[in-house]
């Protein structure tokens, strides 16, 4: 390693711990003061410190796992715009341009320069999902937008705050073009306050240790992260591993959309090539290179080691290649409203390829549908409301253990569903049930987690926008295990007639009073031959009504004990 070692290992450890505590504090403050459920509950946010080359010094750990060392590109876009000498203390820059972020417009990065006197030290940055960024539909969330202009405002490195003073014209301009300006600017204030925490505490750190020592220390931290990751890659068998899968459709056309993955492990390097994936699509499930790269990084990190910090060094052994022109390397003005639709399946597919190198470290597929559903309408007080959540479903089985239930996807982390009691208290919705679906799992010696089903009846004016996945490429089983079920919605009229038998995507589906919708999630794939499942586990599943006797007999080869009534 080229860096001269100036910092002893203890001080280095203390520096790293301090850096992580800064970004965690930024994120904690943001979560506690956010206005939008998607920020404080879904944790659709992320906080980071970057150096003057837009490299990640530290990134917080509590946000969505997908936000993995991916704050560099938006900050770089700001540097490109203003130049390193174009910042002054107190500035705050907004970036959501898909060419920089690779994500949908709602994900707005706010960043501010950190100064020591007149010297620029780096940047403090916070990304948050704004509830609305304008465009054709409430929440800027549709399944049918066809270009970026219909999705909302593009903020391409806009200085909203100049030298500590908010620019009233820019603020008025944004306010006039988005639907929930009060909540959104509430979230922005939370972002701003979090940036200020980063500025202040990073400044304190520099004053305590000195700039040079911190810079050297950060290099050493990166080198350490890199060495740890390389060691894990070296432990993985060399080889070329391929897998592919299909998203159901792009929201406009009905053709399935291919994801192609080739993983090459060579000593301490891992190359992931997404060549062969489908071209840019006319619907809005496109995403940019930085988003598809982040998805690959999630798979990489889940495979090699989940509990180390994320920084510039941790991904040095990983090279991701996404050729231009694919739907995973889209550019403006392609629509990217549903940019993350591909993420759970892309992670699953990279892991499937990697399972060729090591079966033990990869379960069968999970339900794998991001599954956002958004209720809009009018609440009991006559006010407009928006309520966002995502489906939970089953995860895949793996040797020695059944898959979990009631979980979001691999791109989610500590993300909570909204309780039924709060939904009933705040929105014109009655929850009929939220339950597991017996027999729904992918079967196997170690079965997948069961699907779950949530049923709502509208008690007023409500519309539902939803985007479900995995009908084409169902959650696969492994080693003789069967595949899981896919995600679907059905709708039943007030007098009991079936209005929609099954549908995966819809925008502003009307659900007037008395109409019921049932969201059924997918389940996890099974692992190993179901006939090898230990008898006591089959009987436990029967006792708990996770499976029916018919499935126990037909799939698991279970024979009732003599004299038994079942």
């Amino acid at each position: 390693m080229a860096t001269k070692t100036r910092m002893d290992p203890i001080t280095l450890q203390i520096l790293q711990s301090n850096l992580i505590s800064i970004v965690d504090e930024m994120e904690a403050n943001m979560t506690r003061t956010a206005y939008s459920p998607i920020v404080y509950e879904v944790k659709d946010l992320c906080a980071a410190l970057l150096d003057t080359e837009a490299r990640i010094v530290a990134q917080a750990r509590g946000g969505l796992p997908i936000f993995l060392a991916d704050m560099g590109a938006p900050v770089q876009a700001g540097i490109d715009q203003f130049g390193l000498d174009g910042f002054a203390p107190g500035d705050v820059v907004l970036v959501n341009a898909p060419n920089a972020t690779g994500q949908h417009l709602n994900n707005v990065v706010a960043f501010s320069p950190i100064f020591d006197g007149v010297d620029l030290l780096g940047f403090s940055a916070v990304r948050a999902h704004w509830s609305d960024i304008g465009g054709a539909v409430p929440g800027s969330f549709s399944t049918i937008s066809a270009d970026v202009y219909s999705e909302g405002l593009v903020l391409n490195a806009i200085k909203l705050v100049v030298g500590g003073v908010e620019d009233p014209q820019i603020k008025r301009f944004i306010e006039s073009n988005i639907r929930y300006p009060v909540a959104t600017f509430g979230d922005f204030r939370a972002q701003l306050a979090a940036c200020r925490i980063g500025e202040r505490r990073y400044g304190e750190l520099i004053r305590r240790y000195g700039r040079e020592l911190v810079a050297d220390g950060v290099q050493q931290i990166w080198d350490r992260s890199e060495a740890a990751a390389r060691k894990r890659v070296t432990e993985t068998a060399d080889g070329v591993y391929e897998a592919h899968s299909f998203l159901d459709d792009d929201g406009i056309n009905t053709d399935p959309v291919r994801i192609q993955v080739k993983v090459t492990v060579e000593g301490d390097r891992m190359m992931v090539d997404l060549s062969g994936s489908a071209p840019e699509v006319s619907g809005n499930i496109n995403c940019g290179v930085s988003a598809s790269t982040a998805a690959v990084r999630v798979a990489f990190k889940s495979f090699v080691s989940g509990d180390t910090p994320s920084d510039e060094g941790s991904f040095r052994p990983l090279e991701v290649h996404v050729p231009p022109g694919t739907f995973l390397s889209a550019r403006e003005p392609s629509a990217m409203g549903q940019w993350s639709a591909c993420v759970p399946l892309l992670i699953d597919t990279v892991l499937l390829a990697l399972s060729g190198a090591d079966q033990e470290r990869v379960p069968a597929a999970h339900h794998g549908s991001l599954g956002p559903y958004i209720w809009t309408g009018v609440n009991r007080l006559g006010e407009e409301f928006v309520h966002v959540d995502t489906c939970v479903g089953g995860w895949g089985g793996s040797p020695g253990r059944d898959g979990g239930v009631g979980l979001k996807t691999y791109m989610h982390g500590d993300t909570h569903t909204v309780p039924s009691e709060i939904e009933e208290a705040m929105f014109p919705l009655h929850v009929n049930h939220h339950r597991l679906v017996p027999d729904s799992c992918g079967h196997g010696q170690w079965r997948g987690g069961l699907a779950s089903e949530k049923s709502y009846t509208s008690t007023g004016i409500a519309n539902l926008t939803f985007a479900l996945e995995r009908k084409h490429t169902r959650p696969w089983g492994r080693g003789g295990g069967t595949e899981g079920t896919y995600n679907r919605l059905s709708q039943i009229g007030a007098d009991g007639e079936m209005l929609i038998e099954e549908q995966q995507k819809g925008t502003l589906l009307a659900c007037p009073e008395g109409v019921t919708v049932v969201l059924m999630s997918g389940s996890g794939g099974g692992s190993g031959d179901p006939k090898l499942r230990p008898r006591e586990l089959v009987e436990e599943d029967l006792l708990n009504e996770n499976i029916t006797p018919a499935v126990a007999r037909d799939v698991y080869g279970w024979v009732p004990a003599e004299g038994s009534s079942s």
Partner: protein
Amino acid sequence: MQRSAAAIDIGGTFTDIVCVNPDGVLVANKVLTTLPNQGIGAANGLSEIQKDLSAVGTVKHGTTAIINAVLERKGSVTALVTTAGFRDVIELGRGNRPRAYDIFYKHPTPFVPRHLRFELDARLDALGQEIRPIDEAAVSEVAGKLKAKGVDAVAVSFINSYVDVVHEATVARMLEQLLGDDVFVTTGSELSREWREFERTSTAVLNGYVGPMSKQYLGRFARELTGAGFGGNLELMQSNGGVFSVGDAVRQPIMLLESGPVAGIIGAAELGIVHGHRDILAFDMGGTTAKAALITDGQADIQSTYFVGGYEAGYPLLIPVVDVVEIGTGGGSIAWIDDLGGLAVGPHSAGSTPGPACYGQGGTEATVTDANLLLGRLDANNFLGGQITLDSEAARQALSSESYSSLGLDDVRLADGVIQIATLAMANAMRRVTVERGRDPREFAMVAYGGAGPLHATALAEELGITRVIIPPMPGHFSAWGMLNAPTRRDFTRSRLVILNSPSVKGIVAEIAELLWQDAAEFVATLDGEPGVEHVAEARYQGQEHTIRVKLDVDDFDIATFTERFEHDYEKQFGHRSEGELVEIVHIRLVVTVPFDVEVPSPSSTYESEDAGETSSRPVYYSRAGWLDASVVARAGLEVGATLDGPAIIEEHASTTVVGPDTLVTVLHDGSLLLERKVD
């Protein structure tokens, strides 16, 4: 002569007892915990220091037995009776994965398996209106199944019962009649009136799970005390920082989970008030963990959702628990090299067997205690009053072990590194309760206790910029002393969204206050004298999720006054406010307390029996200064008003206080040590 009172704090290894005897003198005892009947050791231990138990008017008791039953999954066979369509709520949880990147993640296994969860079709809506009534025949049918399954406990928890308890109460009463006394029946709404069905159901289930064993434990404990001659009130320490009657404890054993750690925090608050500090950081360090809590204006903060076994373990409880941050750093914490090649300390602990290497019981990995010994901060011949002789050579060997060689540090620098990393981990825990809540730790005094607290308090205070540290007398027994001081207390909470946008709000607040007073009526009726009453609102800007706690004046509620108080507190915590935006109240909590009416003297009186010893000196390693010659004094020999300059080591029976080189120690009137760091 005054009424005598005692506190008995039972842990896994030791039972700590303090007692104010009829002459008003404080006596203390530490005995081994007796298993399986902890009451025997407790009654004997109390009799040793207070011969006539009939003179004892009150015994306050805290125990780790209940939380251990949960952590070790040794509770009863428990069933759940819930709303049709919702029996899987406790299995589905909230959909979250606390360990990002764990692709094998599963929610923790529910305490009630699916086949013991039964559904009833009764249903209320979110306003408390009945949609479908209780079908009595269906309840009888469920009761039949419960009998057939042979369950010991039943939790009844229905959707929307936070609004109206009628369905839960009715079904619980029917089940009690149908199942008889041998089955423990509990409901979610008698434990919590807050919304969120997963958390409230989880609370009911865990209360059921520990119900039968707690009833048995408390009965046995009371019998042992009675058998030894005790005829007074037995009160139990709750996680909210107060005590309640044994009768209440039998109904609500779940309130007893964190009684030990919380008692120490109550003690820290009490001690702070004695010395004129109303803002205190309580720091408690023992063999396996360190705990931190914030005390503001003489009161410990309360959190309303608590996770038993830690957040990742995932069993939430909607009960008031003193807000404690706990981390796996204690005297026995093991130093190791992490994935990145860095030095890490804890949470793995050497425990009591084999214990730290220096215990000479076969431990080979270096622990915090080994580092303390090598650096001269502990005396090999004076550990636990000389009961154990520590093996310095074993500590040195552990710290010179090959497993740490990649760091390239000699044993002393490694030992110092272990102390620094442990200190940093504790400082970060303290930052979570201060800085992340908008409080500046430098404005606080630290009260440090627990066997290892005084050893590390100086370095920790320095890291946080705290200049004043108070070490109570008898830091190893401090939790029991805190328990003895605890008031009688119950908390009652109601969830209801109240948007502060019209004059009618005043009426709504009064209405909720009235409901809370009805909830409290039964408890208040049991109290002697006038209780202290306080209301706290959990409030936020309209549209936010997370709330902050703000004092509420229910008799003279005024939107402008409340909003100003909310915004003031909000800005203090988060650094900004959103003037002009609507504020809403989500929950209102009523806290009813009666202070303990027995005068509890300072624990310092217990030093009289100890030998003062002579002052000596030895080399002690300090992180910044290196090796210094520190004076070594016995705490029992320090008189009130005495001062002492650091560097120094102050030794007593179960603890050692490390005094930094730039620190002045003053012995306060109650025998507490005040350590003041001279700031340059």
